[in-house]
């Protein structure tokens, strides 16, 4: 997990330079309904009430109701639902 993310197979993605592993995490909220986590390193825990995502260093946990992972790829995760709180776990 973390730095050991595999390189993208899509040549277009590689051409665009998205294969470089980044360490700067960007978490973007849209209200408390949607949160986008860039530089996500995978899902550690997923329940409708809690989502824990791996980061290059540590992890972040979102708690709420009816949480769902709208999109997940090797760089980004989008979580939608009613988000109550966020917690960094280092």
């Amino acid at each position, binding site marked *: 997990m973390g730095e050991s993310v595999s390189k993208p197979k899509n040549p277009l*993605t590689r051409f665009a330079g998205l294969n470089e592993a980044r360490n700067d995490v960007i978490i973007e909220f849209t209200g408390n309904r949607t949160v986008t986590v860039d530089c996500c390193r*995978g*899902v*550690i825990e*997923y329940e*409708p009430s809690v989502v824990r995502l791996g980061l290059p260093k540590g992890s972040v946990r979102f708690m709420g109701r*009816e949480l*769902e*992972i*709208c999109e997940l790829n090797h760089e980004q995760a989008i979580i939608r639902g009613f988000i109550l709180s966020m917690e960094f776990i280092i």
Partner: protein
Amino acid sequence: MLLIKLLHWLLGYVRFSLSGEFPERFMNMTASEEISVWDMHKQGGILKGCVRADQYAALRSPARRAKGRLHIDKKVGLPFVLRRYKGRPGLFVGVIAAALIPVVMSQFVWRIEVNGNVEVPDAVIIQELSSVGLRRGTVGKNADCKQLAEMLILSDDRLSWASIYIDGSVAQVEVREKVDAPDVADDVSLCNVVAAEDGRIVNIEAYRGTAVVKVGEAVTRGSLLVSGTVTNRVGGTELCHASAKVTAEVCHTLTLNVPKTVDMPADESYDRYALRLFSLDIPLYFGELEGNFAVETTPRQLSFFGAKLPVYLITERHTVLENVPFPLQDDDAEALCTAAAKLWALENYGDRQAVSFTHTLSPDGRYTAEYTCLEDIGKEEPFSAESEDTPAATEGGSGS
């Protein structure tokens, strides 16, 4: 978002569910293998999500490695809809045709509207347009409206101006008719007065010129009646524009044949319909009728909410004709013919004073009516002063 949903629908996607103990591992593996999965959520301990239809097979390996069981809930999207109707090619052809027909058909002229005409009927103008190259079915884009308008004016002397504008599939034709200049009375040019009909002279009123026939004389068509040559006081000869009113008894003949048998319409008739689509007549019936029929055709243009369509419903009324002996006796037949002859005389010579009306019916069924009336038979005929055939020279020949 809507665009993404539309794209997913066009490409097709599968709603799946995964039961197992390690859904997180499954998610991570799909992400690392770049399988596009979205809308993942848990419902009753089962992970549900969506994946593109062409990537569903790739999900099996991650599911197996995550010790889960993959199950398809629903297949959504255009590819699955198309697959459902794969055995019905006619449906696809119909859809494509429905999309193409309005596009293709709007390239043609299907209706011609004529405005501004008073004396010249629409049908005549449309017929002339057809002869110069604009008719129903012409490709509107290729029509040179300016040239067509000029050709239309040239083709009909009664038109002074025309303009053609093609709007979609409708050709608007605007015309103006010629206003003729009033006739100028010509009393200068040299002319004689000759007989326009055969007849017997009853009265001559020679206003100018010399009368060469007398009352009671019989004349034939073309005979000289009043000469344009006059003798002046000193005995010289002058040429002038002869003018006269020459009244004569003229006999007009009408011949009718009373038939032995006649085709009488029976009470029996059949209506047959046909659809005139653009320029093609499509019969809405099978087979041909055998026998003797009188056919009356009535086209009716169909319209859609007031807009006239280039589709006509043709009604052909076939009335059965029965060949029966002429139903009237000789007296009745003669009376019928006489009535017809009087009607003919009234229609053609009603404005003239009648002299006599005689009629005969021969045994072979030939009816002859002779209608004699008074009419002005004088007709001006010009001549040239340099001509060798001067009025004096022709006087003797034509007066006989």
